């Protein structure tokens, strides 16, 4: 299956649930399309990643900006689901997100780390006036190591 789905979501946390469950549903569609229905881990990983990236986009928005929308694209490409999230914020660097040092019990800083571990690939690049987070994950059949 090859499909593209686009959501335009206002950068407000009241739509967080909408954005992340949309991610979960897109993941479920991907898994079902390749005939692998028991893919809770896959679905959860995508839901989590979308939730984190959307939260990140909303939390770092400029106070002045109102007119823009967070653009979320899902591209289902066979066994691979690609998610692209575009914002209008100041640049951020994915690699600068360190692995949280758990022993010190930090209260935050898990977000991007989580995204990197939940998805197979994550990239961030700058486009015109915003960040583009591109991530992908492949559905793996049960039993593949």
């Amino acid at each position, binding site marked *: 299956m090859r499909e593209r789905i686009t959501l335009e979501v206002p950068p407000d*946390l*009241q739509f*967080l*649930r909408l954005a*992340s469950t949309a991610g979960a549903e897109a993941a479920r569609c991907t898994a079902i399309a390749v005939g692998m229905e028991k893919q*809770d*881990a896959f679905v*959860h*990983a995508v*839901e*989590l990643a979308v*939730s*984190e990236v959307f*939260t990140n986009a*909303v*939390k770092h928005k400029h106070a002045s900006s109102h007119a823009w929308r967070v653009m979320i694209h899902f591209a289902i490409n066979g066994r691979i689901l690609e998610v692209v999230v575009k914002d209008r914020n100041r640049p951020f660097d994915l690699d600068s997100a360190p692995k*949280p040092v*758990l022993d010190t*019990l*930090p*209260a*935050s*800083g*898990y*977000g991007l*780390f*989580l995204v990197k*571990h*939940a998805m197979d690939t994550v990239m961030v690049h700058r486009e015109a006036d915003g960040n583009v987070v591109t991530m992908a994950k492949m559905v793996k059949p049960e039993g593949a190591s």
Partner: protein
Amino acid sequence: MRIDQQVMNNICVLIPRGRIDAVSAPIFQEQLTTGDDDNKVVDFSDVEFMDSSGLGALVASTRRLRAQHGDIKIACLYDKVRRTFELTHADRLFDIYDDTEAAVRSFAPEKSE
């Protein structure tokens, strides 16, 4: 999200229901750190989703309670939320029980016999 509270054997048990994300994490953290009890149990059986904001709230509260010689124990962590713990390796920080009553009991092991 809604958070119910129960007291079992003088231990406060929090039962959050729904999603713990950036929207509900502040409420969750507040509930975790209010009250006189330094020992708490969080029952995750009705949590359908938790992201890093929820985890952050949990870790921050744990830090605070441990400073007061208390602790937070986790109960009934099912697959979905368990994976959030695993991905961040936060499972190393907590004692995780599959039963709320056992989590409560773990605070007073010497009295359990």
